[in-house]
């Protein structure tokens, strides 16, 4: 009766989405969500390496305290562009636009997303936004910091703020349309029997992500637009000369940009839920708590933006409210971590590469999340805000969280996406290298930050050098670790062993079709009669605690 044995593997010789039609045009005009996911994968990887080169330049500059590698104007542009590229063009679309695009229809048993043409459109919009931004970078770059704080960005910066803002504005629509597509798909396209509480947690987290995308992105869009408009007009609502308040910009900016952090990490959490359950062959402990915690994060994430503004003239009472809510939003994340850990209890854990990334994620996310509490605590934040402590904290979430999950997910679904296996040994090796390199890069920054080293400094007092040397050393290891998967993924597309339909022997819907899947995903529309992560029949379920049967298996 076990689902992994009960379904028949389709024969591998069938036509799949990769070879169904040929030619460049068939890719550029495709409406297949899987192909669009690959288009995204390619473009996102490009932006990741652009952002990575900037990161490398930052670390090289900070190796010595004098600021001798780059001029300060160059350095300011480099860290700004690192942030803009990584946040808007890599992290935000990373998991949703690639893995989400590929897997959401497959996991719910649909043939495609609800609006395939809009899906393709959103890739083109992403590309257009990217091109405009790259143009701005090549034309002379932008030096406002990715936060675009006024009045520096509106009046004082002599760089390409308008063009960059336009690029981000355009890119925002890509994000909005992706989120819209996901929500409609999840509501209307589920296969018969795929009830809400049978959906994989990956879907739940993407649903929550999409909520943030559609509710938050428009606000950053109008904010960036108003900044650009204000630069052109020379006056505006953020300009103190007209009685405008520069702090209003920060409210409007962080209304999106704090939830944006959850756009980045929620899909990662979804990936981790998949990895933890599937590589320990156990259903997720407290499924509904993990599912609802995603929604809770999406809602509470909107109530905490003021914690970026504790040292601004924001009123101390508003600061108090924002601080309180920031602590509240930590709870759903904690629930997830505890449930993932509990899932492993009495499970059957494999040491495959994706699982290594998942375990690394939990450890790093714990540190990232806990150091977030330092920043939510008003008094400590006053000291550490705008220092390297903040830099370290959000890299633990964005790199230690999102990037780890992205790489883990990419390894996990690689056989499904390409029909090829990646080299497992190299996979494990690179996962370890990345983990070590990451920690070496960012742990010292916590110390440097508490010692008072401000962020965005091109030169710094010599007593901070030791931490920066450690950090740069770690970054080189991290960079090296990133190159390994880049090489073997490309290699495996041609030379990797052929993957069978279900190489990991898992029950999820995406594994119940051939690898790579046919264009329509499934031969016939599947009828779902099982729960997510149902490795063993429900009657074997072990009940923890005393309240037998209290747990509704929906």
């Amino acid at each position, binding site marked *: 009766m076990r689902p992994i044995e009960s379904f028949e593997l389709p024969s591998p010789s069938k036509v799949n989405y990769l070879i169904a039609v040929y030619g460049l045009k068939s890719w550029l005009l495709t409406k297949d969500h899987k192909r669009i996911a690959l288009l995204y994968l390619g473009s996102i990887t490009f932006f990741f390496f652009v952002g990575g080169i900037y990161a490398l330049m930052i670390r090289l500059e900070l190796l010595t305290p004098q600021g001798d590698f780059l001029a300060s104007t160059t350095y300011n542009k480099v860290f700004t562009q690192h942030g803009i590229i990584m946040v808007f063009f890599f992290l935000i679309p990373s998991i949703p636009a690639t893995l989400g695009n590929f897997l959401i229809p497959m996991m719910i048993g649909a043939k495609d997303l609800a609006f395939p043409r809009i899906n393709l459109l959103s890739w083109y919009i992403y590309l257009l936004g990217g091109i405009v931004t790259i143009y701005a970078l090549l034309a002379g770059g932008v030096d406002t910091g990715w936060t675009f704080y006024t009045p520096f960005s509106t009046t004082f910066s002599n760089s390409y703020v308008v063009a960059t803002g336009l690029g981000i504005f355009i890119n925002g629509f890509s994000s909005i349309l992706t989120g819209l597509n996901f929500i409609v798909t999840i509501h209307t396209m589920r296969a018969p029997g795929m009830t809400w509480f049978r959906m994989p947690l990956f879907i739940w987290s993407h649903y929550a992500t999409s909520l943030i995308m559609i509710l938050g992105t428009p606000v950053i869009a109008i904010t960036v637009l108003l900044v650009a408009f204000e630069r052109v*007009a020379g*006056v505006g609502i953020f300009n103190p000369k007209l009685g*405008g308040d520069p702090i209003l910009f920060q409210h409007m900016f962080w209304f999106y940009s704090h939830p944006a952090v959850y756009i980045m990490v929620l899909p990662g959490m979804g990936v981790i839920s998949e990895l933890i359950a599937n590589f320990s062959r156990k259903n997720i402990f407290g499924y509904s708590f993990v599912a609802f915690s995603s929604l809770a994060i999406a809602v509470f994430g909107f109530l905490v933006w003021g914690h970026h503004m504790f040292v601004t003239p924001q009123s101390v009472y508003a600061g108090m409210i924002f601080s309180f809510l920031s602590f509240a939003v930590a709870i759903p994340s904690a629930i997830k971590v505890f449930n993932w850990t509990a899932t492993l209890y009495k499970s059957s854990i494999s040491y495959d590469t994706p699982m290594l990334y998942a375990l690394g994620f939990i450890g790093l996310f714990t540190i990232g999340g806990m150091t977030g509490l330092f920043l939510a605590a008003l008094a400590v934040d006053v000291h550490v805000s705008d220092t390297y402590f903040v830099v370290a904290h959000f890299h633990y979430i964005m790199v230690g969280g999102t990037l780890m999950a992205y790489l883990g997910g990419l390894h996990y679904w690689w056989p499904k996406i390409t029909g090829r296996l990646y080299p497992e040994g190299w996979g494990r090796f690179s996962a370890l290298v990345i983990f070590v390199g990451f920690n070496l890069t960012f742990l010292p920054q916590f110390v440097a930050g508490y010692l008072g080293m401000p962020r965005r400094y091109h030169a710094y007092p010599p007593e901070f050098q030791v931490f920066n040397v450690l950090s740069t050393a770690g970054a080189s290891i991290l960079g090296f670790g990133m190159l390994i998967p880049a090489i073997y993924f490309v290699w495996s597309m041609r030379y990797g062993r052929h993957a069978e339909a279900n190489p990991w022997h898992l029950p999820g819907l995406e594994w119940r079709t051939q690898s790579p899947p046919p264009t329509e995903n499934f031969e016939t529309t599947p009828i779902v009669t099982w729960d997510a992560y149902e490795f063993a029949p429900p009657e074997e379920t072990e009940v923890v605690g005393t309240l037998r049967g209290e747990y509704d298996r929906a």
Partner: protein
Amino acid sequence: MIESHAATPEIHGHPALQHHFENMEQQREAGTLGMWIFLVTEIMFFGGMFLAYTLYRTLYPEAFASASNHLDITLGAVNTGVLILSSFTMAMAVYFTQTGKSRPQVLCLILTLILGLTFLGIKAVEYHQKYTDRLIPGKLIPGAEFTTDPHAVHLLEGATLKQVEMFYYIYFAMTGMHALHMIIGAGLLLYLIIFSLKGRFDPEYHSPVEVIGLYWHFVDIVWIFLFPLLYLLGRHLEHH
């Protein structure tokens, strides 16, 4: 043609059914849901500007009243009427599509388009007045910087010209963004008219008409708020 479609249950029948949907009902539902979600993003988009408006209106009530009193209330009110009427004709267009009456449907769509363009025309007249009064904020129009004449606008007690400029900045941002939405809406209407003339829509398949109708009504609603906020609040202070 239309009748036959209405009569046969659409299993795989309708030519407008896209391959990845099971039936027309699912396709229509997805379309409507999608447009509503898009409207949510639109609400948040305008929300940012409404926030700025509310904040500065609270901080500088006299200046905002002075500036707002200078706007042409007649043109504003007429435009409100025009837009409401266009919303009505749009609703009727949806009605006639649902009931399969294609001639009045096209007529209603054309009327809606004409009314929309009328609105934009009146708006252009208003913008031109602001241009001649030198009330375009900052250096948006090169050579026609915002006025420095303190009598350009009748300033109420407590108002400064700088704050008046702030009002006009917000005024142009909001009405400009609204007008942009109208222009996009006009384009969408044009598409509807062309495809209606080709007879593409019928009671079975009218998602585009319905969905673009939703968009049009939304743009109307934005104006329903913009009109009192920009033109009316503070009028009662005028004769003090």
